[in-house]
């Protein structure tokens, strides 16, 4: 069975790619992902705020309370250089490229087109095959029009495109007024792929402490349906690849992702919950299913159930919503 696929020009042996997550922290971890059958690895994200905050924190720790009292002019030995920039991250990419054969995709997470875009160059220099750009922005300012938000995405992409020649994937949130429009703009601005969708870790509320409490919840299969819909809608309309992330847990999920139009299916929650062995299991089950259903290759099925190719295109649009509600009422 030919499970190979091609994503942003990268030839992949299969469509299962671990998404940006702690799964890629450390060389051993990356080796294990390769051994487990992953076709490529999206590195854990280099967070813009983390770099800035680390720098500020270190400066704060080393200066707070200093030069105030004659007996304690400072509190810490200041002998080391601090690994505050992307050095550790970039070194890991370099070492990973030497250690494994699968493509390595760097991941940058930030909100500004400021200094962190320089890190894209370092990632490229380290040998990364591509960069995934995750612009994690929550527009809370009521005076900020959506056009400005969209422009920020485009500007960020452009500023990085100017700096690097490796392909860039944009990881998006689902919260755009017009997902199709932003997708087209990004494609025009040079994105090689769209990764749909970023899962915001929505804050929770602590009823006892009356506080907002951050809470990390792993995805479930049900979450697949949102990216599935949008990949299916966009597939074939833009000269760009798609990856589905969020909700890929089973071989069925992976197959659906392909059929909707994704070139690859990204996974993290399932691997974190049930181990890396799931990659091989899913690949085996995909193969079995494809054999049973007489498919020759993954490429054959990509986009086969996209809006462009289904018998009932409206199923992906508003009509589908009405029908879904209707079926729910019937069931009750």
């Amino acid at each position, binding site marked *: 069975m030919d499970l190979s696929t091609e994503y942003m020009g990268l030839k992949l042996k299969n469509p299962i790619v671990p998404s940006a997550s702690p799964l890629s922290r450390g060389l051993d971890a990356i080796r294990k992902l390769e051994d487990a059958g992953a076709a490529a690895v999206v590195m854990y994200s280099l967070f813009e705020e983390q770099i800035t905050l680390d720098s500020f924190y*270190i400066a704060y720790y080393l200066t707070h309370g200093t030069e105030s009292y004659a007996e304690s002019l400072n509190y*810490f030995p200041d002998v080391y250089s601090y690994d505050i920039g992307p050095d550790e991250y970039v070194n890991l990419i370099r070492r990973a490229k030497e250690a494994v054969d699968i493509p390595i995709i760097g991941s940058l997470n930030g909100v500004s087109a400021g200094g962190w875009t320089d890190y894209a160059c370092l990632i490229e220099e380290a040998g990364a095959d591509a960069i995934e750009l995750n612009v994690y922005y929550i527009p809370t300012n009521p005076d900020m029009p959506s056009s400005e938000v969209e422009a920020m995405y485009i500007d960020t992409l452009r500023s990085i495109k100017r700096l690097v020649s490796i392909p860039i994937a944009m990881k998006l949130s689902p919260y755009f007024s017009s997902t199709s429009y932003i997708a087209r703009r990004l494609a025009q601005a040079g994105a090689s792929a769209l990764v749909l969708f970023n899962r915001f870790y929505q804050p929770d509320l602590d009823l006892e402490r009356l506080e907002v409490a951050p809470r990390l919840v792993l995805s479930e299969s049900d979450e697949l349906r949102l990216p599935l819909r949008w990949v299916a809608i966009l597939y074939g309309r833009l000269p760009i690849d798609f990856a589905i992330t969020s909700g890929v847990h089973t071989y069925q999920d992976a197959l659906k992702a392909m059929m909707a139009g994704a070139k690859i299916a990204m996974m993290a929650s399932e691997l974190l919950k049930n181990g890396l062995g799931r990659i091989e299991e899913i690949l085996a089950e995909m193969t079995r299913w494809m054999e049973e259903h007489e498919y020759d290759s993954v490429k054959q099925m990509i986009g086969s159930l996209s809006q462009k190719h289904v018998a009932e295109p409206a199923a992906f649009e508003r009509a589908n919503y009405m029908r879904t509600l209707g079926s729910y009422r019937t069931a009750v």
Partner: protein
Amino acid sequence: MSINENRQQVTIDANEAAAYVAHKTNEVAAIYPITPSSPMGELVDAWAVVGEQNIWGMAPIVREMQSEGGAAGAVHGTLQAGSLTTTFTASQGLLLMLPNLFKIAGELTSTVFHIAARTVATHALSIFGDHGDVMAARTTGWAMLFGNSVQEAMDFALIAQASTLRSRVPFLHIFDGFRTSHEVMKIEKLTQDDMRAMIDDELVRDHRRRALSPDHPVMRGTAQNPDVFFQSRERANSYYAQTPGIVQSEMEKFEALTGRRYRLFDYIGSPDAERVLVLMGSGCEAAEETVEYLVARGENVGLVKVRLFRPFSCEHLLAALPQAVKTIVALDRTKEPGSAGEPLYQDVVTAISESAMSGDSRFSNTPRVIGGRYGLASKEFTPAMVKALFDEAKKPVPRNHFCIGIVDDVTFTSIPYDPDFSTEPADQVRAVFWGLGADGTVSANKNSIKIIGEETPNYAQGYFVYDSKKAGAVTVSHLRFGPRPIHSTYLIQRASFVAVHQFNFLERYRVLDTAEEGATLLLNSPYAAEEVWDHLPASVQQEIISRRLKLYVIDAYAVAKSAQLGVRINTIMQTCFFALSGVLPHDEAIARIKDSIKKTYGKRGEPVIRQNYAAVDAALAHLQEVQIPAAVTSLFDLPETVPAEAPKFVRDVTAPLIAGRGDALPVSAFPVDGTYPLGTAQWEKRNIAKEVPVWETDLCIQCGKCVMVCPHSTIRAKVYDKPSLDGAPDSFKHMPAKWRELADQIYTIQVAVEDCTGCRLCVEVCPAKDKSHAARKAINMQDQLPIREQERKNWQFFLDLREGGSNLRFNTVKNVQLLQPLFEFSGACAGCGETPYIRLLTQLFGDHTIIANATGCSSIYGGNLPTTPYTVNRDGMGPAWSNSLFEDNAEFGLGMRMAVDQQAAYAKHLVSELTDLIGEALTISLLTVDQSTDEGIKIQRECVNALKARLGGAKSPKVRDLLSVCDSMVRKSVWIVGGDGWAYDIGYGGLDHVLASGQNVNILVLDTEVYSNTGGQASKATPLGAVAKFAAGGKTTGKKDLGISAIRYRDVYVAQVAMGADDAHTLKAFREAEAHTGPSLIIAYSHCIAHGIDMSLGMNQQKLAVESGYWPLYRYDPNLAVEGRNPFQLDSKAPTKLLKDYIYTEGRYRILQQSDPASARALLEQAQESVLDRWHQYTQLAALEPRPLAV
């Protein structure tokens, strides 16, 4: 001493200068922190950590010991085993080394100890500089070589090292603490080649050959009898006789290498001077400046700088003196009470007398010698004083055994001087900067002086004066630079530039006292140029006008805010200083500042650099010149330092100290024995908090947590009856008290906004939230200024309310909040984690407590003048407090216990004997009242008062004796308080002994897990994986389990507490510990500024420490074992968090995570294991079935 342009010039302080040579010329260093020498050990350790090599290509081994005594012992050992070894110390540290000094000298062992000379504690501790410590070591047989400046500290470190190897006599290399050790000065750096040339490797090999080795075994350290000891002591005479010549020849060798000429006694001045000053240390520099000034004006004066004080070479001294000398003024920076004269004076007298007696005719007439004291504890020594001494020497009968620099109006020893006399040259820029510790002023000035010193041809000097308080600390920087060498070892007297980095200083300090005519004044002002004038106090306006000052303003906080720098205005003010001083062309200055930012912050990441660059770029655009009006317009001026109703002592003594005018107080103003009244901190209203907590009555649940955590006792609670509200200010807040027992009573929480440091701990712990607006709590922060006046009145009204609730049992946090703290407004850091425990101690037991306090943070915020935070209740009772030393505190406290017990026993004995006089009922009461409760103590106190009344008229010796000891019959609670440096390290031997004594003492260990007061050096309490000084790579060994060690004695009550995790548990432990009639030990988690945390979250850090299992809460109560129960009670729950979730919220761990992630991971893994292991052990202990009681 001029600078050779061909050699590298550096701008550093003397600690770094000496440490540099010590590191290069030694193989081992055994160290222990003590101010002001600590930075030497820290630097050598830091260099060793990064592999910096000595001249033989090896990085020295550096080991922190548990005390200076330990360091000296380790040095002695390494020397005996053949390694070149050094250490660094001062003051009490040197005294602890004395026994080893005698040994090392007796064994003729080559070594150099580098000493930042510091005052020895007598009537009080002082961290500042004089020669009291080194003079106590002058009988040890060590050579003593004094460097007077930063350059000499580097040069003499090397000359001493070379000389000790050649002479075999060990050397104390001495320079003055703070004045030299902390003075930043442009100097010429010695090279590796210089050191190679000065250190004779054959002598090093000789040193090794003398080492103990089983390959050629010998014995040293024998015990000797009267038949041989004396002769053996005399056997080494020739080595001492040769030493001055050796030092002189090493000085000459050094001169050939570097061009810098030194003699054992250097003479400066007129060749035929009739009046000559003789002294040593940094004072020589001020004296040299004055002598040159006076000689240039025709005065016939001179100066002898004593370099080698031991062995004292009379011959070289006599040779250095001009033949015409008539009067020699010998000055000592030490005091030897009861002596015929201070040490240098006596040596000079001996030299002159012996010369005269031997018929030496080198002098025209035998000169007379007068001697006196100057500069104790860094008291200023200025050209004006030098001039006064030369004037005195001119008199037919000059005063001998004098003091200079103070006014002695008791024994009239002081020589007056003209404070207006100045030698400060016109071609020198002198800049004084008033700043806050928090705003980074000193850091910026250290950078500035480095830039000027290293990037311009100017000579440059920086000296920094710090505060006694850690919260809201004021700093004053003194920067000098100019075309000629700088010898001014005194604070700037006439400044050409004054910068005031905090606008409110204008109302607190006389910041313009030093401004000379036409000086520039730079002010960080929230008001723009056109409006600032009206906000200046009248006297400031007057000074600006009369001295024709040029005034510039900048709103540095606004610039800092836009650059996201918070309160760090340092680079902004620095940029303005360079622009106004014109020391460098504008663009070059900006470039150099940016270079220095990169150098300083580079290791901390690009974002911080960018942030500071942005501030520099923005600064000058906001700098404005103010047009000075012709007349004073202000209607306000500097307020009185303390109010008129303050006690006389506070008005007469404390107030001038607070105002920075303590130097002007005469000798008579002070107590004869260092005894000070309590409760003076309340009179110093510092107003340092920008925001203060404000109480909301609609939300408060009266839990008392805010009162419990307040480190400065500025939040208080009272219950009182309704009529007490009569006359309350309109803004005074109150609500019905929520106690069942206190029906109809009123409750108030009041904040002393003028004393609050704005730490926010109270807000963070407040559990009561507005149901409609969760961010609003029962305590919220608000700007202080708008409410200052109203809250000042409210606070006064609150203080006058009588404390209610006396019928309550004070065994809950809610109830304890109502007890008056007898510890308030200390100088501790904002958000301090230690002081809440001390406050609690005083609330519970303060009226019958004696505190023995180990040296450290708690003795500094507890007892550093100008004010005293321990205070008294309405009846005048409160904690009696004393600090002995760092190393002996447990023994000190035990001594107090023994005295109190003995007096109580004697009192009871007398009561029994005097029953007839006292009456049977009162006698029985006095002898039998159960004082285990507060009520019992109260009853006994009433009995004692009744006894006093009854015995009042009787005059027999026994009655008078009984009256002198009867108060001791009221139970006294002895508390031994200190930090982990004391309890785990330097004082552990004594602590252990006291724990084993069975005596009724209470030991409170405020465990910050580092030596906080001296700047965060590792102790044995420092946890695995934490970065601290001397553990720069993260501590690789675990924290000592002090509690378990104590538990093994079985009769010791032990509790491990963390107020932020469980305040009720803390309270219970304090109660039980005090009630226990044997020794008790409380180990209290104390978050600290040295942990690298947001101090407002300190209590939360404590909670995380407990939740992660790092800091289990427990109590071991031996009394339970007596009842047949398991004495060990594990009071916290099994870990619910991983260790990393706690430790990586703290800088001390994150620093390692970001500097060496691999080590951090490995240490974290070990530390997590150790947490689980300890938890396992404790659960086993808690689950033990108690041994059945013996039948």
